[in-house]
């Protein structure tokens, strides 16, 4: 304590900044190191209605599938347990991947169906089908199709109007924040100014950190006696 008292205001400020920085950096390391299943994408459809799929029937929809997808996740609702729900991903008439999940009486919500293969490259206009292999009617949630979009092909719809089904996509297993950064760098420059590229994320993050350091230096300089 006496040692602290002998330090100049600027040295004290440097010490405080360093200690706070250690805490902040530790926080970033902990959060970014947490591994969890990550979405590779979503069609972002609002969930306000649903397609009705009786046992043995399917709902199918044309979709864009992001690269690295290993699970498809529709919003499902099924009252009774028993049987299963299956999903397939087809492109150009070829079956690319399939998966099944036991129908355990889903509460309404996102239900991940792991696929037997990872989709390595992004697919445009792939056909995704969700088949009801359970003993009760399946509800597949989405929003009323608008703006000339025909919506999903399904045996029936809650309001009679065609529905665009909500679909989310997940990668294989759990990923930490660190492993996501290269993917983020690729995507962060899309549909923006042409000169931006994956490099812009790294530059932007470096600049944000440098600004923090510069601000601390300014405070230290203003602490001169």
């Amino acid at each position, binding site marked *: 304590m006496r040692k602290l008292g002998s330090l100049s205001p600027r040295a004290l400020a440097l010490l405080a*900044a360093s200690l706070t920085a250690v805490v902040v950096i530790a926080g*970033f390391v902990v959060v970014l190191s947490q591994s969890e299943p990550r979405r590779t*994408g979503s*069609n972002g459809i609002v969930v306000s209605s649903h397609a009705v799929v009786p046992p043995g029937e399917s709902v199918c929809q044309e979709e864009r599938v992001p690269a690295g997808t290993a699970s498809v996740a529709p919003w499902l609702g099924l009252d009774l347990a028993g049987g299963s729900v299956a999903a397939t991903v087809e492109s150009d008439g070829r079956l690319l991947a399939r998966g099944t999940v036991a129908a355990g009486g889903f509460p309404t919500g996102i239900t991940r169906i792991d696929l037997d293969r990872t989709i390595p490259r992004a697919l445009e206009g792939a056909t995704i089908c969700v088949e009801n292999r359970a003993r009760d009617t399946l509800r597949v949630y989405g929003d009323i199709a608008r703006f000339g979009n025909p919506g999903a092909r399904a045996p029936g719809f809650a309001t009679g109007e065609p529905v665009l089904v909500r679909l989310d996509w997940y990668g294989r297993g759990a990923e930490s924040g660190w492993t996501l950064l290269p993917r983020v760098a690729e995507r962060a420059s899309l549909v*923006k100014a042409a000169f931006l590229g994956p490099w812009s994320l790294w530059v932007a993050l470096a600049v*944000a950190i440098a600004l923090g350091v510069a601000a601390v230096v300014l405070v230290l300089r203003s602490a001169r006696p």
Partner: protein
Amino acid sequence: VSVRARLGRRLRAVRSVPRGFWACFVLGTVNACVWAVLTPSFQVPDEVVHAGYAQYLAESGKVPRPFDTRAGAFDVSEEEAAAVNGVPFSYQTVPTWSERTDRDVQRTLDRRLDREHEPAAGAAANYPPLYFALEAIPYHVASGGSFFDRLLAMRLFSALFAGLAAGFCFLFARELLPGAPWAWTVAGAAVAFQPLLAFVSGGVNPEAMLYAAGAALFYTVARAFRRGLTPGTGAAIGAALGVALLAKGSALGFVPAVALALLLIVWRSRPPERRRALKGAALAVAIAGIPFTAWLAASAAVYDRPGASATAGIAVPAADDTLSEEIAYVWQLYLPPLPFMDDRFDFAAPRVIWFDGFIGRFGYNQYSFPGWFNDVALVVALGLAALALAALFRRRDALRRRWPEALTYVAMTAALVLVVGVAVFRLTPSYAQGVPVGQARYLLPLVAIYAAGLALAARAPGRRFGPAVGAAIVVLAAGHNLAAILLSLERYYT
């Protein structure tokens, strides 16, 4: 010779601005540029219609007339539509990105598409044209590029306002606490790193200009109280208020408080200085009032805009709602309900809308930090608030002496808070009145108060330990900013 003399005078004027202002200006501008580069196109609130307004004004040289001004109604130019349709969007989660779509959109935008479309301004057509006229400059500078190039140019230009907000907060703290230079830097740097301000300012949004004008207004009023109201200071007050009024109607909240400030300054000025103070006050009123009144008159006479559109909803009659309901709603936006009030929200509105929103709710009011982060932020904020209050208590004699100035800041804050509350109530459809429609960004014109609070917190421990507290605040602010950037990257791109 006269040109050289004039240039010399200008240079001297620039040199007389404290270096700390420029340092904070650079911090704020560059940080908002980082946000401008990283935020997906059109994901800053209402950016589609703001960019549409700027594009029409830049292409035609005319202010757009209002067509369909319902929120969320888009009717943009052929070129902007091609850009908007190419950007994946999801209200709820990370959208699906596609390099092929990017290539297709860029190729489409390389073609000559129609750029001039008057209804493109949508709901923003009711806004005054000042901000959009300024945005026409970067739009034209980047006119050789694609729409996305021009959008980025407009975003980067808008980032300058974040720098100005930070710089003026530095100057405001300098007026309030002349003996604590480190606290001025803390104030400016904290504003430069405020993520919500950087996010909005890093997009095409006239609120960026309003935040800068709000900060400038606090600074110029403080300067008038402390150094006297001269014609120059009066003109500066009028300019700051005028720009704020021409940025967004919610700035009307500042008008009665600034009028009160001018009255108090004139009343308290010594007789030999009163004439000069009166001249300053008259200049302030004229410079702020004439352009805004002209805009209101032109709106009604030329553009057929409803008066409500220029007043942030204040002039919208409170249809079907009794005054007591409106008072209860506005009260509960900011404070816990009183015993005789019906609960208008089934959540703690002050915490959820304003505090959590200020810590960071981004996109179209879509995503925010997890609860634990906001809880930690609340603990830190309470600690800093306690320090700031301690500093005020210690300087209570000065506070008592400067009561007119303190009263003015309270009035400016209260009036803006009230105007925002009334606007949120009146512009919220009745079916949505229990949900968090209000957004923390509406209160960012008061960012100077945030800056002053942090400057006081850094001043509280005195000359020896104050810089240490200030340095810790700056590290936390920079960390907060970086955390918000990572949160946004996760929300949009993972």
